[in-house]
């Protein structure tokens, strides 16, 4: 049984209810995730005198059986220590979310949580991470808001994706028919550069809304992913269709669509170098260079840029060197 058939049965397809009873464990993950991520300084940070450190941070942690975690934080331009805050928050978040995966035995059962459960788990996780940021701030005798940053968490798995975030940026996934979809709505205020941070107080109760979605916004994608991406806002207009001006009706039309052409082009190149035997280090170097100066828009971007991409390599050779449990 293929993975997608297994999922169809698991969530109840035409004859899903009957099939569910007979299933005991998920089929073996076939393929290999090629994941790359880079956080690069924006032009305004490079050109400042002295240069402003990159306030973005990210981490990627592959787990067993085709599961993994990718996290990024974008430090607030208005917070003096946000470069430290984003790095610390990423490091803590990786551990906290890995703990959640292990504790709930999602890898072993091959099951993603229900949306309500994921929302609660993510909210609690963000509260825990926030508390740790506060403790560090207290120890360093600074305000926790000096460490302000946004956060996007993506847990990728063979049968779907979990995503949760506080703040702006974008994230998307590629389905098994090759179409890219958005999977989060950035939290923006009335002005385009206003967002919300992990260190903000507003979201703590879990009922605060921004841009028409809750903060944090948590989603369960029950679709076999063949790719995913997450990025800080410095990359969004170079990778997503974010909007256009309808001259006829004099109206700006908001969009939140990953650029199919952009991601498919990069997907092919990632798969190609992977097939040519590039090591993870080679791929990371190529990716960093691309995010830094891959085209004029990336080169000229003023804000810091973090772009993470994961592509499923389904070739036989890739299957042979997949990560096993």
């Amino acid at each position, binding site marked *: 049984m293929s993975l997608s058939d297994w999922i169809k049965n698991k969530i109840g397809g035409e004859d899903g209810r009957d099939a569910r009873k007979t299933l005991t464990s998920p089929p073996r993950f076939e393929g290999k995730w090629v994941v790359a991520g880079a956080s690069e300084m924006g*032009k305004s940070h490079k050109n400042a005198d002295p240069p402003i450190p990159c306030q973005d941070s990210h981490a990627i942690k592959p787990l067993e059986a085709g599961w993994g975690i990718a996290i990024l934080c974008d430090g607030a331009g*208005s917070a003096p220590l946000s470069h430290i805050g984003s790095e610390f928050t990423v490091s803590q978040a990786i551990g906290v979310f890995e703990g959640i995966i292990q504790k709930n035995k999602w890898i072993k059962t091959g099951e993603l949580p229900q949306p309500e459960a994921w929302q609660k788990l993510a909210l609690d996780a963000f509260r825990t991470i926030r508390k740790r940021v506060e403790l560090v701030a207290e120890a360093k005798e600074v305000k926790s808001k000096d460490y302000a940053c*946004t956060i996007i968490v993506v847990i990728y798995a063979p049968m779907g994706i979990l995503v949760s975030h506080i703040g*702006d940026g974008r994230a998307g996934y590629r389905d098994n028919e090759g179409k890219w979809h958005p999977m989060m709505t950035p939290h923006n205020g009335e002005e385009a550069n206003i*967002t919300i*941070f992990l260190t903000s107080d507003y979201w703590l109760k879990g009922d605060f809304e921004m841009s028409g979605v809750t903060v944090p916004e948590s989603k369960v994608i029950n679709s076999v992913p063949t790719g995913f991406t997450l990025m800080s806002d410095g990359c969004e207009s170079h990778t997503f269709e974010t909007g256009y001006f309808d001259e006829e009706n004099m*109206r700006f039309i908001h969009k939140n669509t990953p650029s199919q052409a952009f991601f498919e082009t990069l997907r092919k*190149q990632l798969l190609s170098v992977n097939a040519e035997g590039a090591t993870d280090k080679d791929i990371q170097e190529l990716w960093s260079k691309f995010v830094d100066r891959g085209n004029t828009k990336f080169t000229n971007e003023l804000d810091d840029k973090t772009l993470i991409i994961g592509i499923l390599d389904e070739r036989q050779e890739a299957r042979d060197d997949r990560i096993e449990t």
Partner: protein
Amino acid sequence: MGFKDFSAESPENYDQKSICCFVVDVSSSMTGAAIAELNRGLQEFHHQISDDYQTANKLEVAVVQFSSNVDMIVSPALPYNFEMPHLKAHGSTKLVDGVRKAMKIIEGRKDWYKMTGQPYLRPWIILITDGEPDQGQDINGLSMEIEEGTKNKKFVFLPIGVQGANMNVLEKIAGYNKKGGEWQKMMPMKLRGLKFAEFFEWVSASMSVVASSTEEESVNLPDIGNWMEGFEI
């Protein structure tokens, strides 16, 4: 083994807009070197933002000049859609009327952004003056309007004093910014000599810092360059 660099074309998107309205003093006291340097600074600023790939499609500029009269000499436009005029010094100093005109212009532009559903950044008003406002100019009234406008996030107000400016008046009309949860006055800054070019360079660079993520109410201000003279608060 060498691998081919990754490359991909980015999609075309409509850029979010911001507006910066300069309110410039062209009273007779600016005659000579001051007006010449101000003109040079404005022209360089225009070239700089026109040449900057990022700013050219984002930053709209308006210019109001004041002397015995108040005139909008550049209506809100992207850099490639206007010519920066050469200013001539003459007349008196209707500073308050000039700032009020700028407030109306940016409010109108903001209404346009909102009406058309466009993402935008908080507008800036930059006042550049070298002298004392005319008798009868309502500084106290303007001071209250700027406090209300900046605290309600309608605009950022930055008063710049050129040699001979009455900094006490500028301090009185300074705007507010929230830092660490507290409202703080954004104190006026005094131009060192006639370093208009350096100042406008700073303004151009500032627009990018302003665009970076920030929490509600606060505004990012970039570090001040060497164009500013030390000014005690």
